[in-house]
C-alpha cells in the first residue's frame, strides 16, 4: 500500500530484530559460557565474546561428564536421548499410520469404537496419570529400559488423527484402480499409500522427534540408573549441586549439546516442521 511504507517496514525490522535478539540471547550466552573456563564464570567475570576453553570443555563433557554429579558422560546421555527420541518418533508414526489405515479403509465391527478409544487418549497426557502408569511400567519390569521410556508415550492420538484426515482425502478411485490391478490391502499400503504419505510422515517426524528428545517428567521418573539418563535429565542433575559448586561451563556445554539436535532438525527442516505443527493441531 502507498501509505507510510518505509516507516512501517523500518518499524517491522526493528521489532523483529528485537524479537530475534531476545530469543537468541539465552542461547548465545550458553554457547559463550561453554567456551570459557569455569572459574571465570563463577566470578561473574564472563565476557560476552567467546573464550578459548571451548574444545576442552566440550571434550570433557562428552567424554567424561561432570565429575561432581552423574558420572555419565554427556556423549553417552546423548545416545540415550537419541534412541529414545527416534524410538518415540518412529514408534508413534508406525502404530498410528496402521491404525489410521485400518480405520479409514476397512470395514470391521467396532471400528468406530476403536476410533473413539484412540481419540480419547488425547485427553490423557502422561502428567495426569504419572504414578499409576509408573506402577504398571514397574510391574512389567520396564523401569530403566528403553521399552519403558518409549512405549508408554507412543499411543498418542494426534498422529492417528493426522493420518486419518489425510487418508480421507485419498480418492476412492485410487484404491479401486489398485484393486483392479490385483493389489491386496498390504500391497496397496506399501506401493501406493505410503509414498503418498511421505511428506506428512516427514513433517510428523520432526514434531515427534522434538517431543521425544525433550521429554522430562517421564524419563525422570522411570530411570534411575546412570547409564539410562537422557541428556535433558542430565542437565538438571548437573546444576542440582548447589550453586557455587556447579560447573557452569560444563553445564552450558551440556545445554548446548542438548539443544543441538532438535534445533538443527527444526531449522533444517523448517518447512516440514511448520507444516507438521499446523496439521497436527487441526
Amino acid at each position: 500500500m502507498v501509505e507510510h511504507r518505509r516507516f512501517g517496514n523500518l518499524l517491522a525490522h526493528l521489532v523483529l530484530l528485537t524479537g530475534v535478539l531476545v530469543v537468541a540471547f539465552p542461547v548465545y550466552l550458553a554457547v559463550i559460557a561453554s567456551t570459557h573456563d569455569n572459574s571465570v564464570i563463577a566470578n561473574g567475570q564472563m565476557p560476552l565474546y567467546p573464550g578459548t576453553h571451548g574444545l576442552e570443555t566440550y571434550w570433557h563433557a562428552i567424554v567424561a561428564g561432570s565429575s561432581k554429579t552423574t558420572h555419565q558422560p554427556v556423549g553417552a546421555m546423548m545416545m540415550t536421548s537419541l534412541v529414545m527420541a527416534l524410538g518415540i518418533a518412529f514408534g508413534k508414526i508406525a502404530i498410528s499410520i496402521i491404525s489410521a489405515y485400518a480405520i479409514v479403509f476397512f470395514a470391521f465391527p467396532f471400528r468406530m469404537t476403536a476410533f473413539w478409544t484412540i481419540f480419547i487418549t488425547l485427553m490423557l497426557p502422561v502428567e495426569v496419570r504419572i504414578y499409576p502408569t509408573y506402577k504398571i511400567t514397574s510391574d512389567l519390569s520396564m523401569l530403566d529400559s528403553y521399552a519403558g521410556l518409549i512405549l508408554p508415550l507412543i499411543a498418542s492420538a494426534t498422529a492417528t488423527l493426522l493420518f486419518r484426515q489425510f487418508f480421507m482425502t485419498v480418492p476412492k478411485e485410487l484404491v479401486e484402480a489398485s484393486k483392479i490391478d490385483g493389489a491386496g490391502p498390504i500391497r496397496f499400503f506399501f506401493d501406493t499409500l505410503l509414498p503418498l504419505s511421505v511428506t506428512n510422515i516427514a513433517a510428523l517426524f520432526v514434531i515427534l522427534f522434538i517431543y521425544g528428545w525433550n521429554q522430562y517428567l517421564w524419563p525422570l521418573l522411570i530411570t534411575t540408573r546412570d547409564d539410562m539418563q537422557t541428556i535433558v535429565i542430565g542437565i538438571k542433575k548437573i546444576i542440582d549441586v548447589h550453586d557455587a559448586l556447579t560447573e557452569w561451563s560444563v553445564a552450558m556445554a551440556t545445554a548446548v549439546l542438548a539443544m543441538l539436535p532438535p534445533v538443527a532438525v527444526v531449522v533444517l527442516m523448517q518447512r516440514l516442521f511448520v507444516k507438521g505443527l499446523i496439521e497436527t493441531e487441526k
Partner: protein
Amino acid sequence: MANVALRNVRKAYPNGFEAIKGVTFEVGDGQFCVLVGPSGCGKSTLLRTIAGLETVTSGEIDIGGRVVNQIEPADRDIAMVFQNYALYPHMSVYNNMAYGLRNRRMEKKEIDTRVQEAARILELAALLDRKPGQLSGGQRQRVAMGRAIVRQPKVFLFDEPLSNLDAKLRIAMRVEIRKLQRRLNTTSIYVTHDQLEAMTLADILVVMNGGQVEQIGNPLDIYEKPATTFVAAFIGAPPMNLIALRDADIALPGIGSEAGILGIRPEDLHMTSGVNGAVPDGGIALDLTVETIERVGAETYVYGLRSDQNGTAAVSAKPGELPPGEILVRIPGQSGPAIGERIRAAAAREKLHLFSADGRKRIALS
C-alpha cells in the same frame, strides 16, 4: 469536478518487469470508462495505482484536479468494488456499509440515512442484519456496491466485479451497474477482460495489451475503426478475420506497399449467388470451401478454407485466432451452404480494414 487524468504513468517492479509502460488518458466528470484487455495486460494494476493500493514508478495520477500520487487510498475520495467483493466477514451487511462512514466520524443519523438509502436502491433492505457468509454471490456483489455508494466518492473503481457470477446474473448485473452509474452520475473506472461487458458499459473504452494502451475512444468508434490488429481481433465477437496479404492472392486495387494485413468482420462478408458471383466495386471476393457450419438459431457461422492461400503463415493477433487460411462468415438466419460446398464471400470496400504488416498501424483505404 471529478475527472481522472493519467499522465505518462509507468510502473516497474524491482526485478525489472514493466507492468505499465506509459499510459496517458483522461476520464471526464461523470463518465464511465472501461479498461479492457486480456489477462496480464496491466489493467488491474493500473486500477490499483489509481486507487493507491500500488505505487507508481513515474508519471502522475490526477483526481479532480489534484495530483494524488503521494496520497493514501483513504484520502483520495474513491471507492472500490473488488472482484471477490472483499466484504468484512465478521460484520453484518449494515456494518459493512457503515464502516467507511464511521471511520470518517460521520454522525450516526447521517450514516443511517445513507445506508438505508443505498439499501433501498440496491434492494438490500431485508438483508441488513445478515453476515456475508449468509448471502448469495449476487447479494454480496450488491453489498460491495452499497459499501461504495454510501461513501459518495468522487470516483468509483470496479475491479472485474462480475467475473465471479454466473452468465445470466452477469448480464442482469451489468445493466444494473450502468443504470446506477447514470443515476448517481459518478465518474467510474471499470476493469474487465470481457469485451462484451466493455462494449455495453463504456462511455470511453481503453483497450490495453502488454502494459500499453492500444486504443482509446468511444466503443462503436473502436469497433468501426480499430487502430491495431490486436484491437481488431479483440473487440467484436466472433473476431475479425485477418489475412496476411503476402500469403494471399487477393486482388485489391488502390492499396500501397506498406499494407500488410487485411481485416474483414465475419458479418461484413456476404455470400454471392454462386461461385462466380459479382464482386462489389473496389471490394474483394474470397473463394472458400466450406469446412464447418455452426447454427445457433438466430444466425449461422460458416467456416471456410481459402483456396487462394499460398503460405500457411498465421497473422499475429492472438484473441480468437482462426487457423491459417480459415475464414469465418456470419450469415443471419438458418439457411446456408453445405459442408464441402464451394462458395464465394464478398465484402464491400468500405467494410475493409487495412493494417501495416506488423499490425500496429491502421492504414486508411480510399
